[in-house]
């Protein structure tokens, strides 16, 4: 670990990309993540990274396609509306199996909405906002330190699976400053992949990057291959953090900033004699369904906390599969819930007379 620095989350992402040997960054300004492009415009070129402000998010993601397809380690970043514009490109990249990191510093939607922090893009990131059956590997940092760490991991996972990796964090994580230390990372280890279109360069067979398989039989094979890969991710890459779950009677599930708030709510609850615990998914896809299912058998009820109208909530319910009531607390439009209000909601769930029977269907 190197020196400890105080940095914005967005800057930590940019600096981590530089240290992870990212060769190209293509992006378009949008609040609350423009610092990534700005930081790299300042520091990228002299440290050997190609940094280009594209004319749009669509151009950005397709530059990523080209550069990743040619074997370079590349990254782009944007925020909600800009990420929506990338959906076609992401679907292409997923199908062509190109490794890259795409950062979404989520703001409040839908529409132009607000620039305040939100987790409203969970579905888009996890279920696939683009067309067809594909998955991004989605990482959800909760601290500025993780903003940096998951960039390194993201690039490695992208290479390992030939899959786009999304880092999904809300605007507050992008804007806030915390301590961060960057890991030592040997950038020379990464080689240009064999499948990349680098020019034939003596190779007998040419390399082709495409997502077109006009014959259904072939396209189905491509899909089966992708699905197999996603199953492997599900098997090997699930990451989560648990807080006081050993003896928990009530389980909170939350990711990113919400998880930090829920963490404090757990502390408040424990202070008030309620045995609460927290599971924080770090990978949103693959989702820690098995672990949540196991915990569901132990607890009396589950509360999902998100800065949206209830998106991860569905994955938690799928994991619970009916063994325990799963409830939801969320704020929208850029509002961050306070630990106290989450605790209040938890209390309502705990006191049996007020436990909501409604299952949001």
């Amino acid at each position, binding site marked *: 670990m190197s020196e400890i620095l105080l940095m914005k989350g967005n800057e930590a992402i940019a600096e981590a990309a530089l240290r992870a040997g990212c060769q190209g960054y293509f992006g378009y300004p949008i609040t609350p993540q423009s610092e990534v492009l700005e930081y790299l415009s300042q520091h990228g070129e002299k440290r050997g990274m190609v940094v280009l402000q594209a004319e749009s998010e669509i*151009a950005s993601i397709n530059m990523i396609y080209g550069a990743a397809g*040619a074997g370079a380690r590349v990254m782009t970043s944007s925020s909600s509306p800009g990420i929506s514009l990338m959906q076609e490109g992401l679907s292409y990249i997923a199908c062509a199996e190109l490794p890259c990191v795409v950062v979404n510093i989520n703001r409040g939607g839908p529409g132009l909405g607000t620039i305040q922090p939100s987790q409203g893009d969970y579905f888009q990131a996890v279920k696939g906002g683009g067309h067809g059956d594909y998955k991004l590997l989605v990482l959800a940092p909760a601290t500025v330190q993780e903003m940096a760490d998951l960039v390194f991991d993201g690039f490695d996972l992208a290479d390992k699976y030939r899959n786009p990796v999304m880092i999904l964090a809300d605007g507050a994580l992008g804007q806030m400053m915390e301590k961060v230390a960057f890991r030592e990372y040997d950038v020379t280890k990464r080689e240009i992949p064999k499948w990349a279109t680098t020019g034939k360069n003596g190779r007998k067979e040419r390399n082709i990057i495409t997502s*077109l398989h006009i014959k259904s039989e072939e396209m189905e094979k491509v899909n089966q291959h992708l699905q197999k890969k996603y199953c492997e991710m599900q098997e090997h890459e699930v990451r989560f953090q648990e807080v006081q779950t050993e003896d928990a009677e009530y389980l909170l599930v939350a990711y990113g900033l919400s998880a930090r708030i829920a963490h404090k709510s757990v502390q408040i609850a424990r202070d008030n004699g309620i045995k609460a615990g927290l599971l924080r998914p770090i990978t949103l896809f693959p989702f820690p369904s098995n672990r949540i299912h196991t915990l569901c058998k132990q607890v009396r009820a589950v509360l999902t906390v998100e800065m949206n109208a209830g998106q991860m909530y569905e994955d938690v319910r799928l994991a619970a599969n009916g063994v325990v009531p799963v409830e939801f607390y969320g704020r929208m439009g850029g509002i961050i819930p306070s630990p106290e209000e989450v605790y209040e909601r938890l209390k309502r769930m705990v006191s049996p007379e007020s436990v909501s029977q409604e299952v949001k269907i």
Partner: protein
Amino acid sequence: MNATAELDIQFKDLDVVYERPDTLTDARLHYCPGCGHGVVHRLLMEVVEELNIKDRTIGVAPVGCSVFAYNYLDIDMQEAAHGRASAAATGIKRVFPDKIVFSYQGDGDLAAIGTAETIHTANRGEKILVVFINNAIYGMTGGQMAPTTLDNMKTSTSPFGRNPDHVGHPLKITELLAMLPGTYYVTRVAVNSPRNVRIAKKALLKSFEYQMQGKGLCFVEVVSNCPSGWKMTPVESNKWLEENMLPMFPLGDIKVPSDE
């Protein structure tokens, strides 16, 4: 009139003066009979072969009839999203500036959905070659109107002829691009006659040479045919091209290097 002829030619007394370039794969082209895409493919590969850059050339295919170009060109290739070939090519060239990079795009791809990418790739002066196949129609999707469809020309989405009052006149994007300081060499060629094919090849050759010298963006518009979309025989289509397309899209260099 049917005729029968018997020719017995002793090929071994002869030298080959023209043959299929090795840089084309053996795959049979999927294009309709007489389609200009095939000619341009061949010319590109002849030039790549002659310049001996096969090993470091990367092409980007569009979405359009030439979506399968990578099946025919025996070089490393990418297939980009509709309209974004020049953005993908930018991505490649920026991270690997020593490679020779070209995009190959139709009029729908380059001048409709891809307009922003086209203009900005050119304005930034990306050091790539953009080959623009203008056949005044959306060939692949079955003959819809393109930005370059001629006035009064009938297509499946302009069944009464393109009405300029309704959708404007053909977009001469090549002329626009020539105005941008980022473009280095901008020319318009055709492949409808042996003479034009020779000129077209020269334009492609020059473009690759400029790129090897590190110059800015080269843009080669190829006025081409679409016998299927135009509902003509190939021979008719080339004649129609001459008579109708070329007056609107006159051949020749539009911008030549100022530093030569």
